[in-house]
């Protein structure tokens, strides 16, 4: 068995993904392939990883998040010459709900980038991993995908799509060596949320990344991070509509 794990990270410039990469780099014996749209930003992340762990191999790949043909090709290329052991699918955006309600183009692109795009990436990795009967796919969903709420249902619906897609993949690979992990972070203190009230009390991306890397190692199917969100969302999912509809959330 080879000793170096090959890890592909889609959306590697996101805070959570970057912190996962730092953990993996510091653990050592990994090859990190960082995928994203912006070469300059990816190179900043890559240089940081090399200072933290000079012996880690880090590669930068520019890709597209929307075009199915490019997604297919990109993932095909990742598996040559060596297979990918872990794929972390982490890209996404968090626009204002109100803006999505007023602007259907923004609504469409939000559903596309947070929902359809990660699903296509997951499927492309699944094709290769199914053949090899080996590998882990980790997708970052959200607690927002657990129940539609007026404050963020466009984002929530796209993350809900990921939830169902991951469930389906898990069912398909139940008796195999392919593992699919769905990650549902609660509100996280990242640049995306810096302007939100109380964001300094949100979980840190470091903390969330620790839970993700440990969860992937343990082949978990669903990770709520921080863990308290599992309980909170269980309550929210089961609230009767007459109570839920009175809540301003």
């Amino acid at each position, binding site marked *: 068995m080879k000793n170096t794990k090959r890890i592909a990270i889609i959306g590697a410039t996101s805070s959570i993904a970057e912190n996962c990469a730092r953990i993996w780099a510091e653990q050592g014996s990994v090859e990190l392939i960082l995928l994203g749209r912006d070469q300059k930003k990816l190179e900043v992340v890559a240089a940081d990883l090399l200072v933290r762990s000079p012996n880690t191999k880090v590669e930068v790949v520019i890709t597209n998040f929307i075009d199915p043909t490019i997604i297919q090709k990109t993932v095909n290329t990742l598996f040559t010459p060596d297979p990918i052991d872990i794929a972390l699918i982490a890209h996404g955006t968090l626009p204002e709900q109100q803006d999505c309600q007023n602007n259907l183009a923004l609504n469409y692109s939000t559903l596309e980038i947070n929902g359809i795009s990660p699903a296509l990436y997951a499927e492309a990795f699944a094709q290769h991993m199914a053949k090899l009967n080996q590998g882990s796919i980790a997708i970052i969903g959200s607690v927002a995908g657990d129940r539609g709420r007026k404050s963020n249902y466009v984002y929530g619906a796209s993350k809900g799509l990921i939830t169902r897609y991951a469930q389906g993949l898990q069912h398909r690979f139940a008796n195999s060596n392919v593992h699919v992990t769905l990650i549902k972070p609660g509100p996280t203190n990242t640049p995306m949320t*810096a302007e939100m009230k109380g964001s300094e009390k949100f979980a840190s991306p470091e903390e969330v990344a620790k839970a993700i890397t440990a969860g992937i190692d343990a082949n978990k199917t669903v990770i709520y991070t921080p863990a308290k969100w599992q309980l909170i969302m269980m309550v929210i999912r089961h609230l009767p509509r007459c109570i839920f509809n009175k809540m301003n959330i």
Partner: protein
Amino acid sequence: MKPISSWGRLSHDHHHVIPLHDRHNVANLIKAKSGQPGIAYGMGRSYGDVALNPNGSLWLTTGLNHLIHFDASTGRLRCESGALLRDIQRLFIPRGWMLPVTPGTQMVTVGGAIANDVHGKNHHLLGSFGDHIQHIRLIRTDGTEIECGPSLNSEWFAATVGGLGLTGLIVEAEIQLRPTSGPWLDTETIPYANLSEFFELADSSEMDWEHTVSWIDCMSNKGQGIFMRANPNEDLKEAPKIKSEKKMPFVPPISLVNSLTLRPFNFAYRNFQKYKAGFGIAHYEPFFYPLDKLLEWNRMYGPKGFYQYQSVIPRNVGQDATQAMLKEIEKSGEGSFLAVLKTFGNKESIGMLSFPKPGVTLALDFPNHGLRTHKLLDRLDAIVKEAKGRIYAAKDARMPRELFEAGYPKLNEFIKYRDAGISSSLSRRLLGS
């Protein structure tokens, strides 16, 4: 807009927070909008209003936390300004390098450490943070970039080190790390009965001990306290166990630091440390950053927050002035919980507005009791002024402008390097804009 506080929790005003996370895009984000100046904000560890700007912009730098380059042969680290001192220490100490100077908390950014030219327990040996910076990349709100260092645009460098964030936004810095044999220190703890004993200990320790600091009991005007000194331990290689952090879980309705708790605390702390007196071995984290294990300890002062008051007094009058301040504190009944007394070395700081200068520095904190606290601080001001001392701006939320002007004689020179699109509560209070 969202409410933002500094470490002293004296105010919770609304700020327009602009997160920076892409160093190639900083110039666009901080470009001066008409009448909307901003100021950089990192970890929010400065106590007063140096990084506050109510109803204006705050440029949040914590997303600029990438390391850029490390030269393992020279120990020079280039990084973005939002990198945490904690992360640098944890990453590089196992590789044989460490930050030469760190303040009493490692939960601060490199940019904040430069802008406040922070000092540590080894000031007598290694000066302040700015003494180890080789290069700074500064972006101004008019879009210009300035590269500076000890021998490159050195006047910009002297303005920016200790420049309270007012000369431009520090985007990158290059730090000269120093070789280290590991994370362990040999320590010695010595009780002292009065200020004369303190100064004798401080003087006799400066030659042979790299780190010196002392805790002083403010509840008695005798000036008794506990002196601590340490040197790196060259032999012990064992990896440390990093204990998990605890958090002050809530803001109590009143300050837990009050007249009922102060006397017993000071008594207990003094006796606990006396009991521990003698030689020991300590890991650098609890020795250098004793409060970092209790995250958000600042909450214990209750909803009204607290004032920090750190002065430096020239050595020739240091003992008398310190004695006079202790007397005022005792008289007021407003005791201080975390009183720290330390001598600075003879090295003059690089920065035009750097705080450290030769003499003795006393750091105090007082729960905010409004007018009562202000009156005490005014009396301390009078002592500092007469002794030709100065107050540390990074900790200040209330010093009068004339005391600032008297304490920082290079102020007029500094003003030439200010960025017109940058302003803080502190700059408006002490520099007029």
